[in-house]
């Protein structure tokens, strides 16, 4: 019984990080109706930034996070001007393809530079032992940080003028423009924020599991599942969706072979899209 309980808690801890990864995706979708297929590539960039800063330069692992966030934000703003700005307001195929093209370019360079072999970052955080079960320190730390970053995002969106502008643009871009909000800058900033969130979540994931340049795709798919559970365009729902996914993984692990869990996830994903397109946490909005 304790084993199941422990695996559920561990699921929730990891799920919070999935939620963080999905928040960037859902923020970009909510503000500009773009599904960012370069999200996985951005997650991987965060992973590799941690690797180079922590393992090569020697910066303490968790101290890299602000730096990753800033670099991610700037990179996101640049990407917005190169690849996204021209396709805003066009059929969704165009933005799907342009962001996917960015992903191909980033992954292509990454594969050429770092090959597809696995990397690992050693992070030592003392765990908490309870009865016969130990909760890994890195998992607890990652979940706490994910929570803190989500709270910061909430403060930014709901208690600053900038956040108000973001929410206004997401509600109705033309009306926002009429009230004097520089909507293009807001869009660029939101894209930067989304990419920063992706990169930071990549950094946190890299403290938990080994990764390769191709890992991004799997986490991007998880972010999709989480986003759909939480409702596209709903950052608070994304965190809950992430925790729900982690909970599901944690609860299912003792009862079914690990290889069946993705089947469950994707069936749930398609089912939620059809039955609850606004997410199962639509009431949080």
């Amino acid at each position: 019984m304790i084993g199941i309980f422990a695996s559920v808690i561990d699921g929730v801890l990891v799920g919070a990080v999935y939620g963080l990864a999905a928040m960037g995706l859902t923020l970009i979708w909510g503000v500009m109706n773009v599904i960012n297929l370069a999200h996985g590539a951005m997650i991987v960039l965060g992973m590799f930034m941690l690797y180079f800063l922590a393992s090569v330069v020697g910066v303490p692992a968790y101290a890299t996070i602000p730096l990753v966030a800033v670099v991610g934000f700037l990179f996101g703003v640049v990407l917005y001007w190169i690849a996204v700005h021209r396709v805003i307001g066009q059929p969704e195929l165009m933005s799907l393809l342009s962001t996917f093209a960015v992903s191909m370019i980033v992954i292509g360079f990454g594969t050429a530079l770092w090959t597809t072999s696995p990397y690992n970052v050693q992070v030592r955080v003392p765990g908490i032992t309870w009865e016969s079960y130990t909760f890994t320190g890195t998992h607890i730390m990652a979940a706490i940080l994910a929570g803190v970053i989500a709270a910061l995002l909430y403060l930014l969106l709901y208690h600053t003028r900038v956040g108000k502008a973001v929410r206004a643009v997401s509600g109705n871009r033309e009306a926002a423009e009429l009230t004097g909000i520089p909507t293009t800058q807001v869009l660029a900033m939101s894209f930067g924020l989304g990419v920063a969130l992706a990169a930071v979540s990549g950094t946190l994931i890299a403290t938990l599991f080994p990764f390769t340049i191709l890992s991004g795709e799997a986490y991007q798919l998880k972010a999709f599942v989480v986003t759909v559970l939480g409702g596209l365009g709903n950052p608070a729902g994304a965190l809950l969706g992430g925790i729900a996914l982690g909970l599901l993984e944690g609860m299912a692990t003792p009862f079914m072979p690990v290889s069946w869990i993705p089947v469950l996830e994707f069936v749930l994903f398609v089912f939620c899209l059809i039955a609850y397109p606004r997410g199962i946490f639509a009431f949080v909005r």
Partner: protein
Amino acid sequence: MRRPFFWLIALITILLAVVPYVTDDVQLRESLLLACVYIILASNLNLMIGYAGYVNFGNIVFFGLGGYICIYLVDTLHVHIVIAVLVAGIAVSALALLFGLGILRLRGAFFALATIGVNEAIKQLVANFEPWGGATGIYLSLDAYGQLGGPMQALWTTYLLIVLLTAASLFLSFFIKNSKFGLGLIAIGQNEDAAAVLGVPTAHYKAIAYSISAFLPAMAGGLYFFKSGIIEPGGAFNLSLSIEAIVMVMLGGQGTVIGPAVGAFVYEEIRGLLLTSETFSHFQLVIAGALLLLIVLFVPGGLIGYVHRRWPKTRRWLE
């Protein structure tokens, strides 16, 4: 039949079938086979993307499922390949009709996401499905090619069958575009609500288009994996190939009949050049990505779209 374009398709098909046979060039045949598979994928994908305006991101699921059904029939039940391929096509088409009625209730980006979900769900399901070899997949033994007169002969036969499917894809695309059904699809692509108001049975049309766009790719999957002799979940339900097919459609020009085929052919040639070149083989993905970005940002009509705009008269014979 009076249209010059009809004869253009026929000519392309004959050239595809005859040239490698006459020159007896195995390398050319292999490269053309891949090009043909790409043409089949892109051309059928175009029915959804170019005509109905629905982005099917998981289109490769038809190809993979068709391959699995066909290989299973040939390997375990020793069915003749032609029959196995037909069964695969019909089964996958029927399945697509069922799925289509469900997920086509979604529009735009939601539909695109759902198709990714369907592809991943089926990939994971197959990876756990023991009769189909689970995660390791199925290997065909050499005996399986005996029914076509040995491996060497089988390679030529599968090539010719794939050329036949390529022709079928182009003709299908051509006839749909010139039919009432095709007109309905194009109306859906431009404005679904307006189409419904004008009396287009949108739900049925979309589901039928989805189902039709599954038929030939499933058969091509059967032949392709029969030729390879091996099928496993990662290769069969490869999401990247799915997206590459979208790139081909865009490159050639979505919504036109010949565009996706041109795009597929050009893409295959570029890919071949990049893979064999010393300097660029590492940067194949980067170059393909940059190419895609440039098309999306600056030439959204693709090659054929550009030609049509530049020389309007070509619209008459290059559809």
